[in-house]
């Protein structure tokens, strides 16, 4: 690092925004604006292009007679952080937020993501100082309520899954998978089955499944889908053998379909001495209707940030508790939540009953902030409400499927579960891609569905409305899809191929981003 101010020469105040870029000329034309803004859609520079020395968004008193005792490790030179006042910071992030779509603003039918309403009560409860302002290493006598909440959450998850043990630590779905697959490997290793190194994963699986299995030292053996979008049971059985450690199956699967042969699959897996891992990302379709334990599943992670409504927050944080069969429970990660003589206790050591524990997955005992939200959600819905959640989610997806089956081409016939899958067959004759169609939906005021996933379908469009959408919004979505199709029929394909037209940015050049990576701001001089 150099010792000069790495921000380099300051942009002259009022200079045109970099955001306005080359395209600003279009804006400045007679049909545009002189500023590049468009009324409520306001361009916003990077923080680093706005900072000024001598400006600060906090007022901190300088300590008197400061004499560092840091062994001569003082930082040399400027860091290069921009100085902004609070008004500027509030405005900056307000403007940024205005460039985002969100569930709060409209339908967000991103398949596999369960973008349901995030109740505001959950947010309020998570911010009670009695939860938010607890240090993870406080004396346990001072956190019995927090441990009690964790224990209550475990009870609910047990009842809903029918499984005897729940591991709370995993930070998200992928870490839940890791946790689950590690327990499988630990169990095999402990049982002298350490030669089992093959894991069966359907081709339709989410990328985290093979990535996770690989992290546990497993080889991935893909299993194909049948024509109905389900596991080809015969093909799966043919792959079973003494070196198979587990099957990782998503159910309902990533095509939005329930695996009707799941009991048979489970039996075959078990007969082969392997474990049945279920990716529970799609639990929303069956919560309160079906208990995974009753299907023969040995271990399943759940995404509290899907089924149990903790907000996605633009990509996280999440929480991925894992339900474990009795055979795998001894390997649950540390710490264990146990009842002790002085109340609830977090057992941090792999001793006693926990001596088989796979170890620690993260610094502390779990995503407490998400636990509070999810538990609040559970209490709000109750057992009746949760069951209704699954029913309404499935109903909404089937309604979309039925309403759009003649407009788009369904990948598989219904009924589906909580999401419905289309392919791009119906678009091809217009020379329009799934991506074009998705971008056109942006202009219509909707977040597009998940596109190009699962990989087993060409140009996949996976639509998950969730149970928190009113029928009128579903109908508006149906009308928009039909309207776009009508526009295609009327020869308007070009409009879709150049979509979106009204969003804060038009289609972005992803290739350029990857080819010439600019991954951070750098001072102009650099």
């Amino acid at each position, binding site marked *: 690092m150099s010792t000069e101010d790495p921000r380099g020469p300051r942009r002259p105040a009022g200079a045109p925004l970099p955001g306005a870029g080359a395209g600003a000329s279009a804006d400045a034309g007679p049909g545009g604006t002189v500023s590049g803004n468009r009324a409520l859609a306001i361009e916003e520079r990077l923080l680093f292009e706005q900072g000024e020395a001598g400006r600060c*968004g906090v007022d901190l008193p300088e300590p008197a007679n400061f004499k560092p005792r840091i062994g001569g490790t003082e930082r040399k030179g400027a860091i290069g952080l921009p100085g902004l006042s609070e008004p500027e910071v509030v405005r900056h992030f307000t403007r940024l937020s205005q460039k985002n779509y969100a569930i709060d603003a409209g339908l967000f039918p991103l398949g596999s993501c369960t973008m349901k309403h995030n109740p505001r009560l959950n947010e309020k409860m998570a911010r009670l100082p009695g939860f938010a302002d*607890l240090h993870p290493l406080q004396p346990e006598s001072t956190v019995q309520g927090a441990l009690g909440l964790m224990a209550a959450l475990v009870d609910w998850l047990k009842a809903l899954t029918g499984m005897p043990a729940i591991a709370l630590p995993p930070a998200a*779905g992928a870490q839940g998978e890791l946790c689950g697959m590690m327990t499988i490997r630990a169990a095999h290793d402990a049982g002298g089955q350490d030669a089992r190194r093959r894991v069966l994963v359907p081709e339709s699986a989410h990328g985290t499944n093979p990535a996770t299995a690989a992290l546990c030292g497993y080889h991935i053996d893909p299993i194909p889908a049948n024509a109905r979008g389900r596991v080809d049971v015969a093909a799966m059985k043919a792959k079973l053998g003494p070196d198979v450690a587990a099957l990782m199956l998503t159910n309902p699967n990533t095509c939005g379909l329930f695996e009707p042969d799941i009991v048979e699959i489970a039996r075959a897996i078990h007969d082969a001495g392997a474990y049945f891992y279920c990716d529970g990302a799609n639990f929303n379709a069956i919560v309160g209707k079906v208990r995974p334990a009753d299907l023969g599943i040995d271990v399943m992670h759940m995404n509290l940030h899907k089924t149990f409504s903790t907000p996605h927050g633009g990509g996280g944080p999440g929480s991925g508790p894992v339900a474990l069969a009795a055979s795998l429970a001894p390997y649950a990660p540390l710490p264990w939540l146990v009842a002790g003589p002085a109340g609830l206790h977090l057992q941090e050591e792999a001793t006693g009953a926990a001596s088989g524990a796979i170890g620690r997955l993260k610094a502390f005992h779990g995503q407490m902030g998400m636990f509070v939200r999810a538990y609040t959600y559970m209490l709000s819905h109750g057992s009746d409400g949760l069951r209704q959640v699954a029913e309404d989610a499935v109903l909404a997806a089937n309604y979309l499927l039925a309403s759009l089956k003649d407009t788009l081409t369904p990948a598989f016939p219904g009924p589906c579960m909580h999401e419905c899958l289309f392919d791009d067959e119906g678009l091809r004759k217009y020379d329009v891609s799934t991506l074009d169609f998705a971008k056109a939906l942006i202009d219509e005021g909707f977040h597009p569905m998940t596109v190009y996933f699962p990989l087993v379908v060409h140009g996949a469009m996976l639509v998950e409305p969730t149970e928190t959408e009113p029928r009128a919004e579903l109908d508006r979505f149906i009308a928009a899809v039909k309207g776009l199709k009508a526009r295609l029929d009327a020869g308007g394909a070009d409009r879709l191929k150049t979509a979106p037209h009204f969003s804060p940015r038009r289609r972005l050049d992803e290739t350029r981003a990857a080819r010439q990576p600019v991954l951070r701001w750098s001072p102009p001089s650099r």
Partner: protein
Amino acid sequence: MRYLPLTPDDRRAMLAAIGAGSVDDLFVDVPASARLARPVDLPKHAGEMEVERALRALAARNVPAGEAASFLGAGAYRHFIPAAVDHLIQRGEFLTSYTPYQPEISQGTLQYLFEFQTQVALISGMEIANASLYDGASGAAEAALMARRVTRRAGVIASGGLHPHWRDTVATHLNWSDAALTAAPADPEGKEDLAAMLRDDTACVIVQNPDVFGRVRDLSPLARACQSRGALLIVCVAEVASLGLIAPPGDMGADIFVGEGQGLGPGLNFGGPYLGLFATRERFVRQMPGRIAGETVDADGKRGWVLTLSTREQHIRREKATSNICTNSGLCALAFTIHMALLGEEGFRRLARINHANACRMADRLAAIKGVAVLNDAFFNEVTVRLPVAAAPLVDRLAGQKVFAGVPASRLYPGEAGMENLLISCATETTREDEIEALGRALEGALR
């Protein structure tokens, strides 16, 4: 149910449109044996007021750190977070959006991630950073796995100053591969010689600064030693505020920086959600785990941002991905970015000085207690003291007086010898003088 918009009429009409007789017809694929005939045996739905009462009752059974004189640190730090931070992260457009897969309507998220990456790179003195990981501990594990990929070597050395929870997290993640972890013994006195442990197959050395006992070191000699042996140096910073005062890992020669950003972002939260910071050299970017936002232009030539280099990631690369991570700590990163924006150069550095000044005061007060010895000569906001008695029962006792005196080292190293009497105590800008005095008095009282 207040969260469910479908009415009985809606349901009837929708079933009719589908051509199904009942909702159960849609669940035909579920084996009959597994279908629950009625709701599981749990309480029924409840109103907002009732739920809030239940949650408040649980919360009331805890003592918030803010209601005690708290000197707890050891991996989680209590800082003052300006009100604007929480206000802004609650905006629905941030809170209720997903991973920015559709960049045209996610420029808000993408731009702040780019800003976050820049901030992390700047404060750590590294070239590039990712868009966050779960927490520091899992970040350290990812770093070790990355070092293995970069060096194609198997040996991982963990310093005895590495937080034992982080060390154990690394161990859990390495356990299923052919990596060999060598963990140096706990090092409260700061005596270890990691350079001497380097081998030809050493992929990386993982060291923490300040270490779990609060000690600050210049890691440049170690960095040089690593470099000469072809090993990567991974520098972990559990207390991100320290970077306002102490030379950053990049300046000391680190190859990978792993940080825990909780203190300046999401807060304490009883352990989560936290915020994993991760930065490295530009040339290692294709081995880096996690999402990255990058700059580009749109069809009109305007600057914009996208998620990029995703060929490293699970959704493209599947079993060959650099990591299995998908959901990360987005909203915590936003909180961090906002807070850092408020702090700026001046605030970030001054905050660090205040922390250190308060810790000096605390250390002096502790040192003034008969029978108590402060082990650290150089520290940021945390020191380890040796008590004349076992620390854990003492800490429990003082909790009743609303003094959280520190984290007993025995809690971090259960059953390990030589730890009983060690106490790790931390002061931040939130620590008041009267609280330091309360700590001193309480300890004096208890040791009398």
